[in-house]
């Protein structure tokens, strides 16, 4: 069953087409990955699904649990159960870690907070009293961002480069959060450059030039990382997408 469906979504900004007649289906309860070269439109896709400012004026439609969310604001989409983990988490001067993590949680108890922090390998006693500001490293902020998602328990999580800026010892916690969210019934859409992150997924979509050029079970999609799209061998690739790849969209 689809939890999310994009129907012929096109997004253009400043005369440049960022998503081009893009369609995809995301199955409920599965982990999906979006892969593709730099500039392919992966983060644009996540921002468009979330409805961020500058990514709302689209052609086509986005359906979440069978209903169009095209006209909804970010907060309205979030209240339906859709959320986004930003590639570069925001810093909030003075805002406490506890307040931040529990901001979107339905259960705002101390137990939820402690569990969310423990899930990302951060000691609650140490981190609860801190602020989500520049005193935290990039990796710590990323883990706190993921802890806030764990506390929110969304239906669908978009994770933009979940391993970016995270030290190597902390990576297992990121994967554990992904598995835990899946166990709890969430659907996950990973935006990634990393083969290791791709391994966490059940299925993957390959983007190039704002178009979907390939899709399939995770283990069939590793040729992208080996072949780097040259020469273009995408299954059922439209002529236009092949041209984009050959034009060198960072291949």
């Amino acid at each position, binding site marked *: 069953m689809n939890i999310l469906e994009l129907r012929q979504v096109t997004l253009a900004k400043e005369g440049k087409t960022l998503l081009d007649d893009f369609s995809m289906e995301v199955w409920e309860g599965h982990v999906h990955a979006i892969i593709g070269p730099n500039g392919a439109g992966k983060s644009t896709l996540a921002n468009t699904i*979330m409805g*961020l*400012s500058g990514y709302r004026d689209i052609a086509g439609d986005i359906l979440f649990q069978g209903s169009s969310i095209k006209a909804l*604001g*970010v*907060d309205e*989409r*979030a*209240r339906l159960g859709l*959320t*986004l983990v*930003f590639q570069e*988490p*925001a*810093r*909030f*001067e*003075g*805002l*406490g870690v506890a*307040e931040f993590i529990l*901001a*979107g949680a339905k259960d705002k108890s101390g137990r939820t907070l402690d569990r969310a922090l423990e899930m990302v390998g951060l000691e609650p006693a140490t981190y609860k009293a801190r*602020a989500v500001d520049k005193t935290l490293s990039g990796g710590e902020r990323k883990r706190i*961002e993921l802890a*806030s998602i764990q506390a*929110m328990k969304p239906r669908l999580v978009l994770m933009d480069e979940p391993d970016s800026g995270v030290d190597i010892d902390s990576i297992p916690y990121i994967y554990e959060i992904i598995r835990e969210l899946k166990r709890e019934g969430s659907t996950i859409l990973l935006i990634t450059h990393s083969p290791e992150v791709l391994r966490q997924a059940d299925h993957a979509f390959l983007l190039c030039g704002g178009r979907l050029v390939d899709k399939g079970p995770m283990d069939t999609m590793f040729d992208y990382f080996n072949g780097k799209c040259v020469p273009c061998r995408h299954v059922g690739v439209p002529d236009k997408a092949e041209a984009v790849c050959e034009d060198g969209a960072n291949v």
Partner: protein
Amino acid sequence: MSEELSQEEKNGLIAELLASINEHKYGPDIAHIEIHGNQVLGTHLVEGLEVSSRSLDQGVEVFIRVREGAVLKNPVHFCFGIIPEDGLQKIVSHTVIERGASARFLAHCTFPNAVKVLHVMDAELEIGEGARLSYLERHVHGPEGGVTIVPKTRVTLAEAARFSTEFELVKGAAGRIELDYEAVCGKDSVVDMKTRIFGRGADEIHVREAAMLRGEGSVGVLTSHIALKDRASAVIDSEIVADAPYARGHVDCKEIVQGEARARAVPIVQVNDHRAHVTHEAAIGSVDSKQLETLLSRGLTEDAATELIIAGLLR
């Protein structure tokens, strides 16, 4: 000269002042001083702390001394205020923190019913060699905004002295503020000034913070975080002048502006010795879009998200 109050009247006013700041009776080991209008209503001192006062024609003059080497364990609470809707409070204070002494002052300035109140503070502080003073001035105003606050503070720091100050006005309408703090820093001394104000309605805010880094290795940090909405306006003048070798300074000015509010930040950094280093950062504008969208994507409404971001900034 103000009319002398009976002890019963003084006790009644003290109770009202404390109630307005949600404080209860202090324990015996907590020093506290209450001043209503231009009258000292009560003082309770602890070992190492001396306070005396005298009435002026229009105000009260207070002398505060923390004796050499004394370390005051608990903060000293000052409660300044005016309970009626109008009135004048002028306080001239002289504070000396003697060599090696350490104290924390917590000043509650409360004008809960103000419609036309003028609060003038003219303070001189001398922080002795190796001494430390932390001073938090927390204002509680009513919703009318009928308060004019003119706090002027001049601080002198001797060698290796430390002075940190925070001015906080985030509850009630600010009214009109003319805040002027200046510190002159000796060798290896440290001054840290913070201002946190939430301006609403037609509030007018002018903040001047200055650190003169005269001593070698002295450090100054000036921080102002201001949130403004409605038709409130603010001008922030932050100035650090580094005259000495290895002096270090930083100015941080952040202002969130909503509605028809206006803000202007003027950071001035001047270095008169090539071995000194001073930096500044200033950001004025609406709520940061990345912060806002992060909280929106957790399901908060725009109003709730904005409120949370501003609350953090002013913390």
